């Protein structure tokens, strides 16, 4: 901090401004976006009826217990319901949504704090301040700290996982990683990537005997399964299939891949159809989505993203650097792979990537041995660029919301989905 001087205080100032914008973001997001309605409805029905139920699409604010929750895991909705109960509020969808916005605010603040902690451990304190400042003023993270979506908490879980992986000598490491994997999975099924990341991380990073490593992997798998099993049992009892949530989410893939349903309405692809899905995934979805994610990161992580890209490339040729950064690379790699293999890489999938891309970018900057003066100019320009992009994004959409992308740059469909959503639903100007 002392070494950084003026830039250090600029970072502190940006972090304070970022925290203020996060609080404001809870106010800007007074209307509900996309999948958040699933969690808000489930939270409300849990408070009111004692059951996690879904909601009919297009009726986001009706408290109608129409179908049991399946598309999302239960953790985020249960947390929202818990806060509603704790505050003694009525079990309405509006209240559950407000509770989720408060939880996303807490998660968003935790993302900045934990990123600072991870950066301090993997890099140094100077870089940690700059990374925290950049994340603090990232408009994507500001919006997701107030819109009630679960992606900020997913980022928190990823960062906690990285910190746990570093605690090699802690005897409860494998158990805590397993429990975290299980809870993360039930919070967002996408977080299942922590399981293969845990196995690879434990096998490759540990200094202990290989038998110990295999036992640790088994402990992680057993703990994660123990946490997830009540959800599997509940789904088996309600739907007759413990993995029904995955079936529901796969339907999206089947529809996008053009696989027709059977006469009874169920989807049961043949082996040939599975291969056709796999081919489409590798041939079409993956490259297109990877390109979308890359050019998006180029804009929302101005100046620093090319450093991260070159850093990742250099890791291929340097095991010592890769080993040092392995937990970060594993989380980022698996999360990105799952996101881009999905038919459409949603804008929200970028939220958990940001801290990890920044960490790799600053590790690369450190390796390049840039002269101190030049380095401070680059850092100053980066901070200014983050502030500039946040300013432009804020002014791009009248409601200052950013859930669907399409503000200052195009969304995944080359459109302006957030602006269209706001306009089509008459959310601007805000009703008094």
């Amino acid at each position, binding site marked *: 901090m002392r070494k950084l001087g003026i830039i250090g205080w600029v970072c502190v100032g940006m972090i304070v401004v970022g925290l203020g914008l996060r609080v404001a973001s809870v106010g800007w997001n007074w209307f509900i976006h996309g999948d958040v309605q699933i969690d808000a409805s489930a939270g409300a029905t849990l408070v009111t009826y004692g059951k996690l139920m879904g909601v009919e699409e297009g009726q986001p604010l009706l408290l109608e217990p129409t179908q049991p929750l399946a598309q999302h895991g239960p953790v985020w909705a249960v947390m929202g319901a818990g806060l509603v109960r704790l505050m003694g509020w009525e079990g309405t969808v509006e209240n559950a949504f407000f509770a989720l916005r408060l939880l996303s605010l807490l998660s968003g603040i935790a993302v900045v704090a934990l990123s600072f902690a991870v950066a301090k451990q993997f890099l140094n304190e100077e870089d940690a301040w700059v990374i925290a400042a950049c994340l603090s003023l990232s408009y994507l993270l500001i919006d997701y700290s107030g819109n009630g979506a679960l992606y900020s908490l997913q980022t928190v879980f990823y960062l906690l996982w990285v910190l746990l992986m570093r605690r090699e000598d802690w005897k409860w490491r494998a158990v805590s990683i397993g429990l975290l994997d299980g809870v993360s999975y039930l919070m967002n099924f996408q977080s299942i990537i922590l399981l293969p990341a845990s196995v690879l991380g434990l096998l490759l990073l540990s200094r202990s005997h290989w038998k110990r490593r295999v036992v640790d992997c088994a402990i992680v798998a057993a703990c994660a399964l123990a946490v997830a099993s009540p959800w599997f049992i509940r789904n088996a009892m309600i739907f007759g299939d413990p993995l029904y949530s995955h079936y529901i989410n796969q339907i999206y893939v089947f529809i996008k891949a053009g696989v027709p349903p059977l006469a009874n309405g169920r989807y049961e692809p043949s082996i040939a159809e599975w291969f056709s899905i796999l081919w489409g995934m590798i041939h079409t979805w993956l490259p297109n989505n990877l390109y979308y994610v890359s050019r998006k990161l180029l804009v929302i992580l101005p100046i620093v993203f090319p450093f991260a890209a070159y850093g990742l490339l250099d890791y291929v*040729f340097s095991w010592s650097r890769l080993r040092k950064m392995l937990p970060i690379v594993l989380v980022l790699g698996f999360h990105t792979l799952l996101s881009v293999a999905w038919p459409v890489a949603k804008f929200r999938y970028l939220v958990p990537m940001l801290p990890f891309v920044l960490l790799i970018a600053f590790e690369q900057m450190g390796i390049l041995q840039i002269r101190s003066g030049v380095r401070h100019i680059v850092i100053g320009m980066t901070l200014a660029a983050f502030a500039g992009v946040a300013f432009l994004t804020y002014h791009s959409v009248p409601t200052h919301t950013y859930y669907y992308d399409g503000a200052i740059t195009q969304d995944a469909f080359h459109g302006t989905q957030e602006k269209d959503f706001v306009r089509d639903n008459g959310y601007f100007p805000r009703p008094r």
Partner: protein
Amino acid sequence: MKFSPPILRRVLQCLLAAAFLFTLIEGVVLRLT
């Protein structure tokens, strides 16, 4: 010429530079991504 990792690294670095250039021209400048 021996095909060694340093050469491969340079080739990949050049490809990455080309990819960024392409993205800047095609994505940012022409279509604002």
